[in-house]
């Protein structure tokens, strides 16, 4: 029983983290048509930056906030000074993000070294939550809550604010959006920062569960890709649902069939691509 609870919460927590990661990726791809391959590295960068911040301010939430902002700023610079210069050159943009992913990964290795750095769970959340005689790992519950809050926040942003309306317009029809006078360049930078910030914050929030280690980017990026392919590009609902589906498949896969966990990831992706290339909720094909 305990095993199933732990695995379920692990799944939910991973799903939550994946949502923080893939929502940004999905937005960036949906709006800017850029497959941001730096995204996994940004997640990892957030984790490492958070680790350093924690040494000075031992509060995980502050670290997440500051780390997220730092990564968002970095993302903004990347978009503004490099990606924008390559507007119209889709492949070029992707390759540049790939190049930066490699550079960031190696920089992290140089700065923080090759050993995994564990991130301590905030002390107040270390005790498991005991309900009806069953104990739940508290921090994982908190991560799920954070993801839900983020999802609600993003939803409100997209549906209730002017910024969100502009983003949705851009995702639906870029030319019309431009024609109607939406400041597309600024929008791009904002969305890229938002996506990067979410990834970066996700990295450190995931720290107590995943740690910060070299290769984290390579593990997270394909998961984000599969979530977005599954859930549909540009769809937050798709990213949300997809994240938790993958969270479950990956966690239980590793727990029950560690050798073949990756193959199990294959299957929903193939199924979706074969029968619904738009993804479960997407409105456009990738």
């Amino acid at each position, binding site marked *: 029983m305990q095993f199933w609870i732990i695995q379920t919460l692990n799944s939910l927590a991973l799903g939550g983290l994946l949502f923080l990661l893939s929502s940004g990726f999905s937005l960036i791809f949906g709006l800017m*048509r850029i497959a941001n391959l730096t995204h996994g590295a940004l997640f990892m960068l957030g984790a490492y930056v958070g680790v350093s911040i924690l040494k000075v301010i031992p509060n995980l939430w502050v670290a997440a906030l500051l780390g997220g902002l730092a990564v968002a700023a970095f993302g903004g610079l990347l978009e503004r000074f490099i990606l924008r210069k390559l507007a119209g*050159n889709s492949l070029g943009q992707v390759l540049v993000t*790939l190049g*930066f992913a490699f550079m960031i990964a190696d920089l992290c*290795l140089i700065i923080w070294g090759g050993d995994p750095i564990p991130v301590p769970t905030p002390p107040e959340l270390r005790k498991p939550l005991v309900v009806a005689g069953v104990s739940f790992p508290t921090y994982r519950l908190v991560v799920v809550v954070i993801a839900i809050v983020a999802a609600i926040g993003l939803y409100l942003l997209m549906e209730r604010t002017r910024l969100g309306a502009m983003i949705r317009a851009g995702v639906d029809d870029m030319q019309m959006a431009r024609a109607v006078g939406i400041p597309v360049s600024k929008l791009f930078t904002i969305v890229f920062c938002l996506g990067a910030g979410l990834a970066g914050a996700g990295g450190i929030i995931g720290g107590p569960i995943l740690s910060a280690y070299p290769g984290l980017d390579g593990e997270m990026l*394909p998961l984000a890709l599969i979530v977005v392919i599954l859930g549909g590009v540009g769809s937050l609902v798709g990213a949300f649902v997809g994240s938790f589906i993958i969270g479950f498949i990956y966690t239980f896969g590793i727990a029950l069939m560690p050798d073949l966990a990756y193959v199990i990831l294959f299957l929903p992706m193939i199924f979706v691509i074969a029968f619904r*290339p738009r993804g479960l909720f997407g409105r456009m*094909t990738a």
Partner: protein
Amino acid sequence: MKALGWIALAALAAGLPLYAGEFYVNLTSQILIAAIFAAGLNLLVGYGGLSSLGHASYLGVAAYSSAWLSLNLAMPHWASAPIALAFTTLMACLFGVIALRATGLGFLMITLALSQVLWGLGYRWVSVTNGDNGLSGLTRPAPFGINLDGATPFYYFCLVVTVFALWMIARLVHSPFGAGLRGTRDQARRMAALGHNVGLVRWLTFVYAGFWGAVAGLLYVYYHKYIHPTALSLTSSAEGLLAVIAGGSGTLAGPVIGAAIVVLLKNYVSAFVERWNFLLGLVFVLIVIFMPDGLVPGMKRLWLRWRGERR
């Protein structure tokens, strides 16, 4: 003039072991293997207009298949090679069907995701791949009884295979199929309206590119006598793509030159700079921003301009 150039190149290549030391002979073997990998990828990227970040899948799977068959079934190379090639090509058939449901960035993402899944499998399916330890204790084939353990005989083996591979790829490029392929790259909808089966053309190209990736994979595992999951990594695919782009996609010489650049860079620079990945990333960024056409078209332009000025 052109013929002279080819003869000179052929002489240089054939005579290499006579004037270069073992280190350089081995280095050139690596360049040849990378050239096959890049040339196959270029069919897809340069001539087909389909950028893939998952080409390492075919190199890795062929290498692992060959290694596994040797170690677990004591299969001789004359049997394991065709099986490895067939298996990998079949995998390419399957992957092609999946990935070609999309084009452009969707295609890129799917090839990347598939490749990363294989990479993860390489690390975790320890019972088959031996995970992070890789598979070692492998041998090189001995075609017609010739021992390929030495640098020089293996180099000639690679040279023969590479020349054959490049020749086959060149034939395709110049054939009606190649013209059709380029057409689908430039105006897919128009080609369909003219009666070309765009989907099938792309899929066949995908599979063919995968086949040559598998060939490169076999040479790779024979050369190193060892295979590790890094061969399946994104870095590995990216190096191939870099070779295609740096040399100039959509040309025949481009991938070969690009392969030389990437291998030389990797070998020489790693002596001075510890982090190859960083440099790889930086080179990607610089090339995309400053030299998007790649070296070969750039050089061609210079050459034509020089010839124009001479008149």
